[in-house]
């Protein structure tokens, strides 16, 4: 029954400053390690969980600078009526406009009604929870009981404890307290009886000795015997826990335990709460991750779910508009989301290659040909750089999905803080254009001379390689089809199509076709008839080309690829 609209953090652990409009009901935070994803969840948890004795230390302040006040402000909407009463926090009501993504100090008629809850800790480490409003100089204290009404839960933490009935655990909260006490008392009595019936000869002997000695000292004892101490079973840390038949659930595998604990917690809080899960994939195999994510996120109309993840499985299980990218630099944390306009392009890239989300640098290739080229270059360059290929450098090459989608995907990636290069054909203008891509922070690598990849290749490789390429083309497309398209291209370029008699370039030259013409013809044919437009065939092309690269340094092809190499291996 609550949804967080905005989060502001100052000077909390790794975060010096964060201002984040959440913009959604379901989201998954992804980002490189140490980018404070868990800290964000912790901040929300500390501000909203109904705990009254939270110990803070100097280490909870940014760089342990206790002179700067630690502040966490959470602006929450869809509030329960009980909190909006005039004698509660109704007079501190503010407004949030989802369209403008802005907080209004007084709620306009079209706004969502929100309250801003502030947790502040100063150098004497005493936390204070208040409800604040700009126009009100006296913030109102927020009791932990009222925080309970917000129903925030961190699922999956303290797994072992939540599978028991220890104090404050989810199961304990669901249970009627009196019946638990009764169970323990009965258990104690039964245990004592059981011990009383046991054969304890050796202990009895010692007890008899003790009796004689005690009598000597005047202690009036009659029947000393060993028995179970009355305080043997106490309702302390998890005396009662969940069992599956004779097996305690606590001894299940991590994944199952976690899911069980999660299920129990959710039973306690209901569907209308705010749910935080750190590392949703922890301990789970991919199909169970997907199942969990679906159960949590699908069709959610109330409450809110905020996940973090290091794994590609949750990333592909949800649409890209639910992803949030954490970007951290020197204390400043920004949480970014994909633009509405770029969602389709970006979504396609992620579906094709979810690993891109977790890369540091991304090469967005225009199509499969370029992607195949990158793959082969990866192996080739690795040998030259001491075995360090793309993986170790955190580089991923993805298929951008064509001229229309690729540049947009590259722009989104650039905007979201990835180190990005768009690698593609220059035969037609790209949209967004080079300037826009660069403004978004991405680099652009296009072939010189307004050419597609195949055309550039055909123009620059030695003739022997070109022959190999032609042979590959005949193999893939069939000799007749391949030569036919060559003939058509030759004719278009003004040459004599009859000169193409067979699959040998040398022959063509002898028949009078100029080198430039035949290069162009083959290039156009390869591009136009899509000889290498899938990964396998593209690979074969790439292998041939890469083998020939050392011999053609200085050509536009080699120069461009060298530039790409430099970008990949830059520090």
């Amino acid at each position, binding site marked *: 029954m609550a949804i967080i609209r905005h989060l502001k953090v100052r000077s909390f652990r790794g975060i010096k400053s964060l201002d984040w409009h959440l913009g959604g009901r379901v989201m998954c935070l992804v980002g490189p390690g140490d980018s404070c994803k868990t800290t964000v969840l912790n901040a929300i948890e500390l501000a909203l969980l109904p705990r009254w004795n939270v110990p803070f230390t100097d280490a909870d302040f940014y760089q342990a600078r206790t002179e700067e006040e630690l502040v966490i402000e959470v602006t929450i909407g869809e509030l329960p*009526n009980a909190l*909006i*009463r*005039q*004698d509660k926090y*109704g*007079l*501190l*009501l503010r*407004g949030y406009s989802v369209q403008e993504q802005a907080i*209004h*100090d*007084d*709620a*306009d*008629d079209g*706004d969502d*009604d929100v309250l801003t809850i502030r947790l502040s800790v100063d150098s004497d480490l005493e936390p204070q929870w208040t409800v604040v*409003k700009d*126009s*009100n100089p006296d913030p109102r204290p927020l009791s932990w009981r009222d925080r309970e009404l917000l129903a925030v839960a961190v699922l999956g933490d303290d797994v072992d404890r939540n599978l028991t009935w220890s104090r404050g655990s989810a199961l304990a909260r669901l249970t009627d307290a009196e019946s638990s006490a009764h169970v323990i008392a009965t258990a104690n009595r039964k245990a004592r009886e059981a011990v009383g019936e046991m054969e304890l000869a050796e202990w009895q002997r010692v007890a008899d000795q003790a009796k004689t000695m005690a009598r000597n000292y005047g202690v009036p004892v009659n029947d000393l015997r060993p028995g179970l101490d009355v305080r043997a079973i106490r309702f302390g840390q998890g005396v009662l826990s969940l069992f599956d038949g004779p097996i305690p659930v606590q001894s299940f595998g991590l994944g199952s335990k976690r899911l069980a604990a999660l299920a129990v917690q959710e039973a306690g809080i209901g569907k209308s709460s705010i749910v935080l899960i750190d590392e949703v994939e922890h301990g789970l195999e991919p199909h169970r991750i997907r199942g969990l994510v679906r159960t949590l996120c699908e069709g959610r109309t109330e409450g809110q779910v905020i996940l973090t993840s290091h794994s590609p499985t949750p990333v592909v299980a949800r649409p890209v508009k639910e992803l949030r990218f954490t970007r951290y630099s020197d204390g400043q944390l920004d949480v970014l989301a994909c633009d509405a306009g770029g969602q389709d392009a970006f979504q396609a890239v992620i579906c094709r290659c979810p690993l891109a989300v977790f890369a540091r640098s991304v090469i967005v290739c225009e199509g499969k040909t370029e992607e195949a080229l990158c793959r082969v270059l990866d192996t080739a360059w690795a040998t030259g750089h001491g075995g360090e290929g793309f993986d170790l450098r955190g580089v991923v090459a993805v298929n951008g999905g064509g001229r229309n989608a690729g540049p947009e995907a590259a722009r989104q990636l650039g905007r979201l803080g990835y180190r990005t290069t768009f690698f593609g054909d220059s035969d037609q203008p790209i949209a967004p254009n080079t300037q826009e891509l660069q403004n978004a922070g991405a680099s652009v690598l296009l072939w010189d001379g307004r050419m597609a990849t195949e055309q550039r290749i055909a123009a620059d490789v030695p003739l022997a390689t070109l022959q190999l390429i032609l042979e590959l083309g005949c193999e893939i497309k069939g000799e007749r089809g391949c030569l036919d398209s060559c003939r058509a291209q030759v004719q278009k370029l003004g040459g004599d199509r009859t000169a193409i008699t067979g699959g040998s370039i040398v022959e063509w030259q002898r028949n009078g076709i100029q080198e430039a013409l035949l290069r162009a013809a083959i290039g156009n044919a390869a591009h136009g008839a899509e000889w290498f437009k899938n990964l396998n065939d593209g690979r074969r092309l790439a292998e041939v080309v890469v083998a020939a690269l050392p011999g053609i340094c200085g050509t536009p092809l080699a120069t461009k690829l060298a530039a790409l190499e430099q970008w990949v291996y830059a520090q």
Partner: protein
Amino acid sequence: MPNDTARNFARCGRGLVIGPAGCGKTYLIAEAVGHSAGRQLVLTHTHAGVAALRSKLAALGVPTSKYRVTTIDSLCLCYANAFPHLAGWTCPYPNGEEEWKALRVAACRVFECRAPRRVLRVSYDGVFVDEYQDCCGSQHAIVGTIAQALPCRVVGDPLQAIYRKLHADDVTPWSQVEGLFPVLGVLSVPHRWLHRNAGLGDWLKDVRIRLERGQQVDFGNAYGLVKWIPWVTTQNQMGACYKAFDQDGVVAICDWTARCVAVAENTRNHFAVLESVECPDLLTAADKIESSTAVNRVAGAVEFALDCMTGMAPLVAMFERIKQGRPYRPRSPDKARLWTAMLEVIDSNDMKAVLDLLLAIEGITGKHFYRRREMWREMRRALQGYDAASGRTLRDTAWATRDHARKNGRRIVSKRTVATPLLIKGLEFNHALLLDAAQMKTAEELYVALTRGSFSLTVLSAERMLRRAVPAWLAEAAATAYGDRQVSRGSGA
């Protein structure tokens, strides 16, 4: 006999009950709150009214969780301060009638917006408004706006609408009120007089009908019910007051504050002046004391003391000496204290010195009497609460202590009070003393003055037969007096 009126009143979505003086309108509201489901917001105009409502509700055993009693203006201030952007309201508390008017307009804006309405609807299940005849036009607009969000039931008596002259151009014709809140009925049992002076109650019922019709009121025809003194002289007035010295719950009625102060002085404060809410004299004095320094500040304090008490000759004499710079050897400890206190005020800038001076003034032996004890006490309280570091002026602090009283509801503590009809309207006393009926210029003022005492009424009037103009609202409407629509409230009180 089941009490239908209160129940029906509680259940209707919108309604008006007309309650002549002493017929138990406050009691009706309290009962209706008891019958209502959920939490009710009960609105009235004065803090005295708040106190009266609270005591009736407590007496009926209605749990405090079921209601909140406050004044309309306090509610406006609360919401305008909570939603300043929606209201267009910037100052924390209004000073003066102009600013109050602006506040009401701002509050009306607030109550039309969705979010504040939501807060109202979530916090309360219904609204009751007492003394509706005292609503100025802007307050009527506010109640109308709130009535769109919540069930709203109002109680009033147009014949007690004496605030109209204060509201000047901000007046709502009573016909509009009835248009918005359909009349459920008129209370007719004069409970105030039923077990104390039933004859007086009946006579007053008759007076009401006469006043509504513009007919004469005869003081001479009410033997044993009304004590009529035909010559209005100061001697007679004071005589009537002295006769009341051993009685409890007496109110003497004049038309101006200055006349009230004179009565208080002449009776040596046996009759205490009831101060108005704003108490402008207090605020002016606070201003003066704060803005002056040294000797002028002492002058301000002395002036204030003269205003509030008699017998201040030694104080004035001492002050003259200080002004002239002549030395003085105090002959007694309290005079010494006074002298030191005065010097302290001159030397230091601290407001605490002024407080000491006031305490020293109180300690002057010899005959001195209070004219305005309440105001004196308020000044002391303001000086005690004054904190230079907070940036609030003495005037603001004084205003704040009055405001605190406004919020908590005020109790009348004196046994004998002298006041104007404006201040005592809605209140109940044992004995009423109208010091000059001619001072009551309108039918409404006269009616209010005559209906204050439940055991006895004493009237000083030069004329035996008094006639006043027909009240405005009746002159407008062609309707007959509400004789047809009387509703009996049952005999139990």
